[in-house]
């Protein structure tokens, strides 16, 4: 069961007639989404978010709880009751009780709770008569006995009590997602793109998302593309970190010797070392006149895994600085017996994978 942080907001439990409850719930959901995008509104008044990811990010569970408490205070101006436990049922209970169940201790916690924690008054009443006071007492009851004494729906609760299920039937408000979606759509600003290069609402939203993501992944986590001149696919296009001061401008000037379309859909900025062999396992080489010493028959990654070469084209020599012998490169297109098409590069007798037409 997943370790979850639960946020219990008593004042959002009952829906007000003026629709403010739903609006506030949505505002809090969006705010908690900044802490962890996997925050879910399970039902009005109760949010759950995974504990592990944010703990890594914020440096510990108690730091996350502090952040969550601050977020609730900022958004609603009220306090929430927080709790941590494994599984949705016990997370909700822990949040209502305001306790952090230690990792691995949820089983013990579950067994210690009164039977009423399973949310069925009739079960709690019948249980009391049978001398079953806690969830643990109920869990110890044999399945067959539960079956003969109670209706089918209690069997599900029995599985929850045993820790086999981590969600109570009906715990999630199934209609809530659609209601929030409609509310969000009604509030969505007009998304006309700005004229004459003005930034529109859609641009602002995208920038906000990129900013948030950069906070999550680090400065070079989010990138944008820049096209520029150059002969090779990896030279002509580059990813630059989003928000870096000067993104290179587009330059459509024709470059002599550039590879023609189609271009590989995957371009390795740093080539992956590969082997290209001809008959009798001779390494294929491009000689000084730009011809191959032997036609390639086998392609293999340096780590192993050989494939037959069914077709090749090239080499296209590429003397970038012709006076420097060491910079003599050439490209080769190959088709493998798997049907995959690759762009290979060679330099000083070594082959690397430059791109995949995938």
């Amino acid at each position: 069961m997943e370790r979850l942080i639960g946020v219990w907001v008593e004042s959002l439990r009952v829906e007000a007639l003026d629709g403010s409850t739903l609006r506030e719930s949505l505002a809090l959901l969006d705010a908690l989404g900044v802490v962890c995008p996997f925050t879910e509104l399970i039902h009005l008044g109760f949010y759950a978010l995974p504990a592990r990811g944010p703990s890594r990010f914020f440096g510990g569970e108690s730091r996350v709880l502090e952040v969550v408490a601050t977020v609730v205070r900022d958004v609603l101006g009220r306090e929430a009751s927080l709790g941590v436990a494994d599984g949705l049922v016990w997370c909700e209970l822990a949040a209502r009780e305001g306790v952090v169940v230690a990792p691995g201790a949820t089983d013990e916690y579950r067994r210690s709770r009164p039977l009423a924690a399973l949310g069925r008054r009739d079960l709690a009443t019948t249980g009391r008569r049978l001398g079953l006071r806690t969830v643990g007492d109920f869990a110890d009851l044999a399945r067959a006995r539960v079956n003969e004494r109670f209706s089918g729906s209690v069997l599900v609760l029995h599985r929850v009590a045993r820790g086999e299920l981590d969600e109570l039937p009906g715990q999630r408000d199934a209609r809530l997602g659609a209601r929030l979606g409609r509310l969000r759509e009604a509030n969505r600003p007009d998304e006309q793109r700005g004229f004459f290069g003005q930034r529109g609402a859609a641009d602002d939203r995208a920038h906000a998302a990129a900013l948030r993501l950069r906070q999550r992944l680090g400065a070079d986590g989010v990138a944008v593309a820049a096209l520029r001149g150059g002969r090779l696919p990896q030279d002509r296009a580059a990813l630059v970190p989003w928000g870096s001061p000067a993104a290179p401008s587009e330059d459509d000037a024709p470059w002599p010797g550039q590879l023609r379309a189609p271009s590989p859909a995957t371009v390795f900025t740093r080539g992956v070392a590969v082997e290209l062999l001809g008959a009798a396992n001779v390494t294929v080489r491009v000689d000084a006149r730009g011809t191959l010493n032997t036609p390639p028959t086998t392609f293999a990654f340096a780590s192993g895994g050989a494939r037959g070469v069914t077709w090749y084209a090239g080499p296209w020599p590429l003397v970038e600085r012709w006076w420097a012998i060491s910079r003599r490169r050439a490209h080769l297109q190959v088709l493998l017996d798997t049907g995959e098409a690759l762009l290979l590069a060679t330099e000083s007798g070594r082959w690397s994978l430059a791109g995949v037409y995938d």
Partner: protein
Amino acid sequence: MFASPPIRPPVPPELAATLRPVSFATNRRIALDEPWRGLVPGEGLRRGSTVAVQAPSGAGGLSLALSLLAGASSRGHWAAVVGVDDPGVLAMADLGVDLRRVLFVPRPRGAWAESVADLLDGVDLVVVRPPSRAAMGSARVLTDRVRERGAVLLVVSESATIWPLPVDLSFTVTHAQWSASSRLEDRTLRVRIEGRAGVRSAEHTVVLPDRRGRAAGG
């Protein structure tokens, strides 16, 4: 006293429940360019839907997914590409993708699902290539979020990383064949397009990429 004075006379509650904000059918779909426009029901990707692109390794799945971005990005929609370590930006430009409105998250490491969730708040289309098979839980959360935000999630997968939930629309490459002379010329794909259960599936021939690096009808 009213907490906030009503500006208009109140609508009867049973009527209010049936009212929707004004939105046009075209706004509920994100436009596609040819050749996809003619092949996809409704000529676009429905907002709130999850779309799968499946192909064997190296059989054009990535190119196909990127070509689906072209129509959207050229019409001003923002898009994002997550988990494609080394995207062929030049190929994207050839496909007609407006790179000024594409965010890349090349190496999200363990946080690909979180990254997608974040991006669904800000962009209309997210292409993701999950590095491993998505966990049921994250897939469900992401599907819900896509629906709630009215975005479109395009999942590029191979058989090992197939999306664990049913999708609204799927593109499956069943056959890929390069034609080559003195260089690679173009690639012909057989693509099966299926909607949700009950929607007729059909197989189409598409050239992707063609000699100019674009997608074209077969």
